[in-house]
């Protein structure tokens, strides 16, 4: 019984949150890795792109709510999501038009694009704060739980409860669908393959008649969608705050690099590696160990390896360890 309780406690406090967070990071990292693969630079504005897409979704959510539209037990934000994605796509394509396209035409070095992305980051950051303000916004509605801790206890008779928030369920389901769609697109469709070809060998892609501007356009479309979905899922699960989204840049970059920059599979693996290590190291293990160990050995402290504020340190440490042993990341960072 104690073992079961330990497993339930572990799932409740570690596994489920880490899976949800990992899915959000993975979606974010996929966007970063696609830009890196196709446009050949790390987009520092990605966190703020996520913030922009989420902001747009929140605004549409509010509009729907005030019009009396709801999505039953599901959050209204899911209904607003397509509109949010559309807004984000427009913003990102406009940015590409005005900013990045020029550098492609003059064949600028990727590092120049990195610097341009810093400028874009400032602008997006300013726009988001201007429109929705710097404060925290909660926009999740509908059913809060798929199963509450109390229901679980009553159902199983266990001492420990297992709560599954609906936002966590939605996160995982959405992430699985999105990732499946993305992989199908990249590996099975003509356009997807042409993106991989362009990422692999730009010159040869040109010789094969692949139009680089079209590849770039499709990439931005996908990235804007991924960023908005990742942002909305994160915001539903936790809350939306422009600064938090900006700060997500580090774990997202870390995920993409741990997995191997430019490799979509790696981005997903990296997202989960980072999320699990963050949650594992910053979780207070007292409860789980209390069930597992005999009473005499029961720990007196919280058995928390590091305080939660050090979660960035964990992402970073994992990153360093992986790079020391596998300099190109877990999945050889090469192809999109």
């Amino acid at each position, binding site marked *: 019984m104690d073992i079961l309780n330990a497993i339930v406690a572990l799932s409740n406090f570690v596994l489920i949150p880490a899976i949800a967070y990992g899915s959000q990071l993975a979606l974010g990292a996929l966007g970063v890795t696609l830009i890196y693969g196709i446009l050949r630079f790390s987009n520092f504005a990605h966190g703020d792109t996520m913030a922009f897409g989420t902001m747009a979704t929140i605004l549409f959510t509010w509009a729907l709510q005030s019009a009396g539209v709801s999505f039953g037990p599901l959050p209204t934000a899911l209904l607003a999501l397509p509109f949010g994605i559309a807004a984000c796509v427009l913003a990102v394509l406009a940015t590409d038009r005005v900013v990045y396209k020029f550098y492609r035409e003059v064949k600028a070095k990727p590092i*120049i694009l990195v610097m341009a992305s*810093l400028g874009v980051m*400032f602008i997006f950051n300013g726009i988001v704060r201007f429109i929705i303000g710097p404060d925290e916004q909660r926009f999740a509605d509908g059913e809060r739980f798929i199963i509450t801790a109390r229901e679980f206890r009553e159902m199983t008779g266990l001492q420990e409860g297992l709560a599954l928030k609906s936002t966590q369920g939605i996160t995982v389901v959405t992430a699985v669908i999105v990732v499946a769609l993305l992989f199908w697109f990249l590996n099975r469709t003509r356009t997807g393959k042409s993106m991989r070809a362009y990422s692999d060998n730009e010159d040869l892609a040109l010789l094969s008649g692949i139009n680089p501007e079209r590849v770039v356009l499709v990439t931005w479309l996908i990235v804007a969608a991924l960023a908005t979905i990742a942002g909305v899922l994160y915001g539903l699960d936790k809350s939306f705050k422009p600064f938090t989204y900006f700060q997500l840049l580090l774990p997202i970059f870390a995920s993409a690099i741990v997995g191997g920059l430019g490799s979509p599979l790696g981005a997903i693996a990296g997202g989960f590696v980072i999320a699990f290590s963050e949650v594992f190291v910053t979780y207070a293990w007292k409860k789980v160990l209390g069930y597992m160990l005999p009473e005499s050995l029961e720990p007196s*402290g919280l058995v928390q390896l590091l305080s939660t504020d050090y979660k960035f340190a964990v992402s970073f440490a994992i990153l360093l360890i992986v790079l020391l042993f596998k*300099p190109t990341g877990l999945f050889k960072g090469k192809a999109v």
Partner: protein
Amino acid sequence: MSDKVKTIGLFALVAVLIIGTGFVQSWNSALLILNLGLISAVMALGVNLQWGFAGLFNVGIMGFVALGGLAAVIVAMPPTNEAWAAGGIRVLLGLLLGAATIVGTILTYKAMAPGKIRNITLIGVLLVGFFVFRTVFDGGVEAIEAVNPSVSGYLGGLGLPVLIAWPIGGLLAAGAAWIIGKTALGLRSDYLAIATLGIAEIVIAVLKNEDWLSRGVKNVIGLPRPVPYEIDLQNDPAFVERAINLGVDPVTASTLYVKLAYSALFAVVLIVLLILAQRALHSPWGRMMRAIRDNEVAAEAMGKDVTARHLQIFVLGSAICGIAGAMMTTLDGQLVPTSYQPLRFTFLVWVMVIVGGSGNNLGAVLGGFLIWFLWVQVEPIGLWLMQTLTSGMSEGYWLRDHMLEGAAHMRLFTMGLILLLVLRFSPRGLLPEK
């Protein structure tokens, strides 16, 4: 227009802007801009050294600046004797054990042959070391933080004059930079950007959490000053008399006097660093750095140790950022970990360097002043703009309120715009490298 005229002209423009602020707003605001402009210029100088002369992309400037701030606390604050007695030794011992664990792990790694046994031993060493470290360390921390937590609860500093903190801040930042550089530049391909991004967040996390060190988010206030206090000046009859003779209100005079004293100190640091940087770059060392930058393969073929040179310049540049950080905390008189934001302390410095002119020390300094001036002044300008735009709307109309509220965020937008415009139309910056 010759380069010299352009340089002088642009610096004159900055001077006019700051002096204009004095006339239009107040001399206190003007001096505030000048002082932080001087500090920004020092930061930009450090980053320019790394980017302009070695192509190293440091996105962790905030971390080095914060380490400088920590140095100010460690050097200048009076020691908390009870805290030292309660757990000082224990914390130090804990830290030593932690360091020993890491050294032990590295030694084990080097001593043993690769394989499963090594991996298990390594994990064993790390785990045992970590728990020993935590056991010793946590007790000390608890004891220290229990000492009078509302005003103290930390070890305090060494009680030395705060000016000493400036070079110490540089050293602290240099140490951190060495560790980062050694790891990130030593890898097969370099990973400096992500490494610096990470370390900056870690430094801030340490400052926020390790209350025994710098009181965490409770902030350290009342740092000793290198310049007199306003209140002392106002109580000094000689000063009051001189102020009245000059026709200035003594209270205003005292605030201006203090700020001017800071300006003088900062200016000395900036000028010394600028001269050093300029001389270094025209020395054989500087020529070698540029040779490496412009053709690394050729430089390597000539027997230059590129990684070691890169590490050197990365450490130097970060040290300068550390000095600037210590200067800034000294000016503020307090260490507030939550005030360290990447946009302000990392990316804004990048805007300064790019706008000023990568690879040109004077350009970086100019960028520091100019961008800082704009950063401060865009807000009132934005507010004015919003007021003009919304003047037709009725009082209390939601859009009017919203736009007025949002004016504060105009500065981020403006900085991005400036960066993009310069990058596009004048990619070498205002004062290009010769």
